[in-house]
């Protein structure tokens, strides 16, 4: 598409969807075939390049496509079921992958044939992700990986993983990392559930023992892992905190609904608090809108950290307030049994779940403390904390 007039783009896009629907009757086409065809027509993620499910358009045009397809009753790719794949792995593969890697992985990722998880954190390397000690050693055309990952959401249902591992312990910790695409069904991948605060096991421990990964599944250069991982994390922060829903779409929407449904529980003090949160959420929404406009062409940088910081705070305050507002009903939970959730829904289920799950929002994808460091050091240019872990080989670091 050459034109830059947004209205012309909209019209062209509408026509493309109409033509696509005419050529592919979703009522008679197999769901997966339909999704694959949608990908091939460039209507999967319009901001991706032609040939990889997109049309090279600004991200903002995606909504129009989703709305038009949903109105027609077409099936979607169940994006909730593959948040890490769509929000984090895909943009990273797009940015750093070879043509062959993009061809091989992006389509099944988008259609949901392959669910992805993120093998980053380790017991000793959470905030300090660059300190990971999972080793990848070259053996012929393969890498052999050994180590332990932890807090891995969705590892139990994932077919693929993005993995950060140490390929060179002799250099400084950031310089010795490489980034891999790991098959979760490879021999030596052992996934064990980790029960969490909500009672269920959404995340896992993953033990990697002599897992073979072909060199063709290394993303980016050897030793470039930190740079690639940073791109993933920047995308993650936008994916978690970037919003994109409408007014009252997040936790404040849930709280507002509760408020409207329970006039008997209202009070002057709570009302002021509610309105403050409502305003915060609305401002976050337009801030996200503006950020997405800024990012329309490029890739997210550290600025997205501020969005996630705000998102986590609002989600936690609103869900905490909802429990108080509910009073004796807020004292009731629905279920503590150990389960394997099919997907994570921050604003779904019951108020107790929402409150507890929201606690993770300021930990997952970089804690709020780390995000403040990112903002102050990388956005504001303030001097960094005194560091004892730079300019020294990883193997010689104090542990």
């Amino acid at each position: 598409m050459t034109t830059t007039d947004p209205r012309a783009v909209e019209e062209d896009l509408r026509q493309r969807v109409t033509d696509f629907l005419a050529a592919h009757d979703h009522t008679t086409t197999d769901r997966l075939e339909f999704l694959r065809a949608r990908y091939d027509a460039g209507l999967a993620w319009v901001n991706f390049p032609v040939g990889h499910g997109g049309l090279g358009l600004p991200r903002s045009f995606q909504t129009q496509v989703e709305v038009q397809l949903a109105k027609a009753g077409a099936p979607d790719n169940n994006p909730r079921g593959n948040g890490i794949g769509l929000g984090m792995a895909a943009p990273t593969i797009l940015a750093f992958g070879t043509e062959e890697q993009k061809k091989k992985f992006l389509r099944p990722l988008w259609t949901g044939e392959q669910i992805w998880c993120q093998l980053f954190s380790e017991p000793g390397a959470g905030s300090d992700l660059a300190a990971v000690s999972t080793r990848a050693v070259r053996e012929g055309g393969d890498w052999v990986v050994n180590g332990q990952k932890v807090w891995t959401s969705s590892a139990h249902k994932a077919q693929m993983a993005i993995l950060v591992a140490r390929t060179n312990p002799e250099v400084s910790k950031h310089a010795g990392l490489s980034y891999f695409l790991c098959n979760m069904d490879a021999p030596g991948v052992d996934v064990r559930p980790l029960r969490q605060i909500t009672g269920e096991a959404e995340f896992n421990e993953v033990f990697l023992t002599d897992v073979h990964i072909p060199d063709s599944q290394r993303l980016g250069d050897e030793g470039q892992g930190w740079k690639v991982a940073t791109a993933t994390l920047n995308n993650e922060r936008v994916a978690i905190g970037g919003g994109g829903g409408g007014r009252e779409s997040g936790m404040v929407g849930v709280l507002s609904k509760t408020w409207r449904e329970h006039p008997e529980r209202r009070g002057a003090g709570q009302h002021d608090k509610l309105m403050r949160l409502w305003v915060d959420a609305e401002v976050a929404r337009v801030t996200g809108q503006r950020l997405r406009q800024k990012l329309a062409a490029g890739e997210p940088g550290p600025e997205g950290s501020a969005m996630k910081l705000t998102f986590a705070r609002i989600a936690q305050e609103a869900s905490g307030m909802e429990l108080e507002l509910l009073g004796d009903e807020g004292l009731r939970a629905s279920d503590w049994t150990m389960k394997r959730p099919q997907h994570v829904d921050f604003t779904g289920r019951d108020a107790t779940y929402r409150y507890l799950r929201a606690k993770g929002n300021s930990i997952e994808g970089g804690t709020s403390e780390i995000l403040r460091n990112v903002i102050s050091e990388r956005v504001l240019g303030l001097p960094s904390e005194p560091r004892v872990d730079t300019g020294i080989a990883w193997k010689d670091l104090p542990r």
Partner: protein
Amino acid sequence: MSDLNLLYTDVEDDLRSSVRDLVAARSEPATVAAVYDGDRSVVDPLWRAIAGDLGLAGLLIPEERGGAGASAREAAVVLEELGRSVAPVPFLTSSVVATTVLLAAEPGGPADELLAGLAAGERTAALVLPLSAGPGEEAPGFTVDGEGRISGSARSVAGALEADVLLVPVRTAQGTAVHAVRADDARVEPVVSLDMTRQLADVTLEAAAGQELLGASAGGDAVRSGLEVGAALLASEQYGVAQWCLTTTIAYLKDRRQFGRVVGGYQAIKHRLADLYAAVESAGAAARHAAATTAAGDADSVVSTAVAQSFVSDVAVKAAEEAVQLHGGIGMTWEHPAHLYLKRAKADQIAFGTPAAHRARLAELVDLPVA
């Protein structure tokens, strides 16, 4: 306003260590966590040891009525320890709230026998109101017919699962009366609760037999003072919760390293913990003040209780939330006990009136009307 002692006496310190030792020996976080999976086997023996062996169930009951003749100060110390260990025992609901209600009954009346049973740790009682009801929110959900049979229901009642006798506030034309109903004569349905260490139940009575312990002239005030004392002393439990969260988090952050440094050495973290310390210390003072004024029968007790509930509830939640956050991923797990404290703190915040409700009440008490 008198200058009440807000420190701990030697007797109170001794009491604290005996409770702490007993709880440490009998209930570990892992056994406590089992209550979330429906295994309540820790509850009964622990409660029997506290109520009977240590004789703490009768703390608030005067000696001449069979109790230990102690005061709200000592009961508050017990609650600090029970909070610190999220112990799943009905001390607050039976030995504080229900007991306070019963103590309003004239000696020599039908409440005596029950009080003696409570004092001996042989019986356990619960006031049948939602745990969320604060002082002034005691509207009873029960009525009594001409033959003295009681019907009605109450949701989200704390302590009912452990109780063998229920104190039922009954609505009459003359006011609220309080009847005792055997738990066996009630339908007590366990509720999956936010805080399973104080599991709630829905209580339903269908023409149940009861015995009037407090008539309509006295019952309303008795229930209100039960809730008032409950709210006052809950603050000490909340303080115990907050203290555990603070000390456990400090200990962890002195040890945990990231970026080659001890995480507790980062100034951002030090300042956070310093702020939390200031809040928890203040919470301790507010809780102690509420206990001391209550024990002294001081005119300021209602204000100090509203202050304590307005302040300490939020501090306990804050401390628990900080504990989860500052432990990172491990704080989000089932295995780490932080979640037990978060759930207790959040439920306690709603119990006996939310901070917002207490602030609204306080505004009236100190003449600061909203409009």
